[in-house]
């Protein structure tokens, strides 16, 4: 067990690599109750999020549609990354990181009170993520009868709330299909046991990290934080700079985009034996940088990572691993999606 944002969480229940393969090949589940669901309620909720989020919730037209976004400081630094789900014109649900939940809530409340939006953290809810090619099929029969049909027809990045308690979304952090299920905390253990009986493998933080890194997904606190912008974090695709919408951090990002960001975050494939780890130094022709996340990829059976480097860096680089310079290659994430390698080895 390790401390993760103040929560005691298992690195693995058994073999971390077997847990990883279970998600890529069949179905695995994660207790992600540390993540904090936050309900925003009131007529001003959409205007609030248009201002608070770098991605554009104006695009969310169909009820249930969700969006990944960064929430920024005025200088463009990333306060947190989150999922925002549009439920109705007076109700959005955010899911934010555990370690940042307190500062997120303080920041959101400061802006929400001006427009009369209520900010309600849902610590009464547990969240279980079920991920993998067979995850939905194994989960659906175990949902409450009244929710099954609606959950079964959810499209990608859609969610559905049931009686303000059960909440099922077709989202995740692994690069596989699946659900994230929020449910009353007292129902969580029974649901977990039923999933286990249905052949869903319990997976720990270790597998969660190797899966998200193969999927090319950032981890807040490792790959980005308040000292960098989304444009320096491989997240330009999540920033909606077009149009007149004025969100917090926009002018800083526009300025940075005009000048060209000095740094970028990209993928790294180690070409020799060893394992990339965060904080290892990376040497490119354009200058030095640092590994922000690194691991062994069970799917590729190679070491992969994310690295922050001068924006001009490309092609071959070297990584300082335990005093030796090991050759590596810059690649565009993701490394793996839906069970399939996405880069050339």
């Amino acid at each position, binding site marked *: 067990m390790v401390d993760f944002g103040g929560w005691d969480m298992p690195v693995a229940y058994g073999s971390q*690599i077997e847990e990883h393969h279970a998600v890529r090949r069949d179905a695995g589940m994660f207790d992600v109750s540390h993540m904090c669901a936050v309900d925003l309620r009131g007529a001003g909720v959409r205007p609030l999020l248009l201002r608070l989020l770098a991605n554009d919730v104006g695009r969310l037209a169909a009820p249930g549609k969700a969006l990944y976004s960064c929430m920024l400081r005025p200088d463009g630094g990333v306060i947190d990354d989150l999922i925002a789900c549009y439920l109705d014109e007076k109700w959005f649900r955010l899911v934010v990181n555990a370690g940042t939940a307190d500062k997120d809530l303080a920041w959101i409340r400061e802006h929400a009170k001006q427009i009369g939006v209520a900010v309600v953290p849902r610590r009464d809810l547990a969240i279980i993520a079920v991920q993998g090619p067979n995850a939905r099929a194994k989960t659906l029969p175990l949902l409450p009868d009244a929710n099954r049909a609606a959950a079964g027809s959810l499209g990608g990045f859609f969610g559905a709330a049931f009686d303000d308690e059960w909440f099922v979304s077709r989202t995740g952090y692994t690069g596989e299909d699946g659900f994230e299920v929020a449910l009353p905390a007292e129902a969580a253990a029974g649901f977990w046991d039923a999933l286990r009986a249905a052949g869903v493998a319990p997976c720990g933080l270790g597998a969660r990290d190797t899966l998200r890194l193969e999927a090319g997904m950032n981890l807040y606190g490792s790959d980005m934080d308040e000292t960098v912008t989304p444009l320096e974090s491989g997240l330009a695709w999540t920033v909606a700079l077009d149009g007149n919408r004025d969100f917090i951090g926009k002018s800083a990002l526009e300025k940075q985009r005009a000048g060209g960001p000095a740094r970028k975050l990209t993928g790294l494939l180690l070409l020799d034996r060893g*394992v990339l780890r965060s904080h290892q130094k990376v040497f490119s022709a354009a200058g030095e940088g640092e590994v922000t996340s690194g691991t062994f990829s069970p799917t590729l059976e190679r070491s992969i990572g994310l690295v922050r480097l001068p924006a001009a860096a490309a092609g071959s680089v070297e990584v300082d691993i335990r005093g030796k310079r090991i050759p590596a290659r810059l690649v565009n994430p993701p490394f793996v999606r839906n069970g399939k390698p996405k880069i050339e080895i």
Partner: protein
Amino acid sequence: MSQIPADLRYTKSHEWMRTLPDGTVEIGITDHAQQSLGDLVFVDVPEAGRQLAAGDACAVVESVKAASDVYSPMAGEVVAGNAGLASQPELINRDPYGEGWILRLRPAGGTAAESLDAAAYAAVAAGG
């Protein structure tokens, strides 16, 4: 609970030693050590002929979680590294005291390194 065979000698740094009939000593890491490291993904073993002093870092075992040095419990010359670990590092997870051996050493003689019996090592392992 981890296995600690009674017929082996151990170090505080979680290596085990087995004296073979020809007088060479086989060295690996303990069941407790492999459990702590988790799934091993790379192992660097020393080449035959390398001279080691007691306490020298002589191999690297790297898991998904962390890299760790293996220290030679005694001075001597490497007779063999376990070549099978290059393609199957998981042998250490599966069979730490058998197929997962890391190196064989011909002891240089002289002062025997400090080593622990199974009961003394069990106390070390229980302490962390």
